[in-house]
């Protein structure tokens, strides 16, 4: 059954072209996906991300619980408000979901998980939370807007009161806090500065209008995808899933293997995979000719081995096609990608492709 966020009418007002996304009626664009992309790279854009799932975790043993549940270590969260990106793994080391966890107080953490994985995530979290007496509460009454771009914070603060804006100014990257009726965090999924702002469904439409007045332009899921790909950020279900481990998805940096006695779910499987070796590599590709890289296209290395593109697109910032790919570890600086029967040359690069509006690819 199809669901709508509290901003659905606002999307129609802004001429949003509505598509189904994980059971939600969401705007793919409001006219031009490419213009929206540039809007975020050059100024400020906003995304309705209310379909994402906010889950509050409460109890005296919540930190201990998260140290068991997540592959990254919430021990890294020392200051209240700090956020941590992590994978939640199954016993086999496959990725159930990737998510963000905010440390609010010693007995209260807030988590944001993907909409498409809501049911299995909640079931998994609740199943394990029981052992730690942690209370799991979904917060569907909260809407969420991501305001992103070099001018995003400044413009978003125009929609806040002076006192609220002062508090928001103090948020350092990857930190959030309760400010007035909002939960504001300096996080995002575009490679630009900005805020992700939670507010109740009842109040979000008025806040959206204030952001519009401040010159923040609505941007759809289409631009969100090209922005995150340029920023080298994985998309769950496309770049990794339950059949792939973070080790082969470019997410090794999110795995906290130290301290060695922290027995998180999936740890043993990861250690076995590392011991067994022969892991695939997760790389960025830049197509050297015209054309567009897409998910599932075949990658051929110079020594004749094969890999696969997990997600690809045309990069509006670079004006070239870029992709993420899972490939044999022997891959060199160059490879070929098969597009409609032809092998086209591509360069193997380190991600991200773009950060803070600047190309990182020469």
């Amino acid at each position, binding site marked *: 059954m199809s669901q709508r966020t509290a901003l659905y009418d606002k999307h129609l007002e802004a001429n949003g072209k509505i598509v189904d996304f994980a059971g939600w009626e969401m705007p*793919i*664009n409001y006219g*031009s*996906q*490419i213009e929206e992309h540039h809007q975020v790279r050059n100024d400020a854009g906003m995304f309705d991300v209310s379909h994402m799932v906010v889950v509050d975790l409460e109890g005296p043993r919540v930190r201990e619980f998260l140290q068991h549940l997540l592959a990254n270590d919430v021990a890294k969260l020392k200051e209240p408000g700090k956020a941590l990106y992590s994978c939640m793994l199954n016993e086999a080391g496959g990725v159930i979901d990737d998510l963000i966890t905010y440390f609010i107080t010693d007995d209260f953490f807030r988590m944001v998980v993907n909409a498409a994985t809501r049911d299995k995530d909640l079931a998994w979290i609740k199943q394990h939370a029981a052992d730690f007496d942690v209370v799991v509460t979904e917060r569907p009454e909260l809407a969420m807007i991501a305001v992103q771009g070099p001018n995003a914070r400044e413009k978003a603060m125009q929609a806040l009161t002076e006192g609220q804006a002062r508090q928001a100014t103090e948020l350092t990257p990857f930190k959030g806090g309760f400010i007035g009726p909002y939960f504001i965090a300096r996080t995002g999924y575009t490679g630009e500065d900005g805020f992700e702002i939670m507010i109740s469904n009842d109040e979000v439409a008025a806040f959206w209008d204030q952001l519009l007045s401040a010159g923040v332009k609505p941007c759809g899921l*289409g631009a969100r995808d*090209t922005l995150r790909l340029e920023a080298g950020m994985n998309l769950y279900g496309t770049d990794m899933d339950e059949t792939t481990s973070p080790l082969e998805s470019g997410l090794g940096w999110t795995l906290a293997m130290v301290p060695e006695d922290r027995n998180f779910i999936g740890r043993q499987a990861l250690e076995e995979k590392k011991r067994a070796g022969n892991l695939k590599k997760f790389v960025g590709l830049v197509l050297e000719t*015209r*054309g*567009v890289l*897409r998910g599932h296209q075949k990658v051929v290395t110079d020594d004749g081995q094969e890999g696969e593109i997990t997600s690809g*697109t*045309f990069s*509006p910032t670079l004006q070239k*096609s870029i992709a993420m790919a899972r490939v044999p570890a022997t891959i060199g600086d160059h490879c070929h990608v098969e597009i*409609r029967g032809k092998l086209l040359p591509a360069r193997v690069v380190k991600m991200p492709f773009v950060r803070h509006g600047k190309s990182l690819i020469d």
Partner: protein
Amino acid sequence: MSNIPSELKYTKSHEWISDNENGTVTVGITDHAQELLGDLVFVEQPEVGKELEAEEACAVVESVKAASDIYAPLAGEVVEVNEKLEDEPELINSDPYGEGWLFKMKLADPDSLESLLSADDYAAEADQ
């Protein structure tokens, strides 16, 4: 509803065909098609001189979202392609019936034009 000029012919697969009245036709994609595809970023054209069969996949247009095949509306030979699209594929979005044309072909049978859809027929198709 999108723009469907009455003087053109159409296919079910969203190509438009303009009769140049010299045995050749110009082919492009409709306003409705470009709207469905979103921002176009790449066009792969057929080779000039290539003999096409009716309904043969002969070109590809790619938007940020996806790649779509373009089908030869009728049998004939490709006599010219719109080279401007190589650098400016977005012309298909901004002017689908004008500067965004794809290619011209010399029809094997000039009478075959009659078999294509009229603007009204296409409007009914696109509505479904």
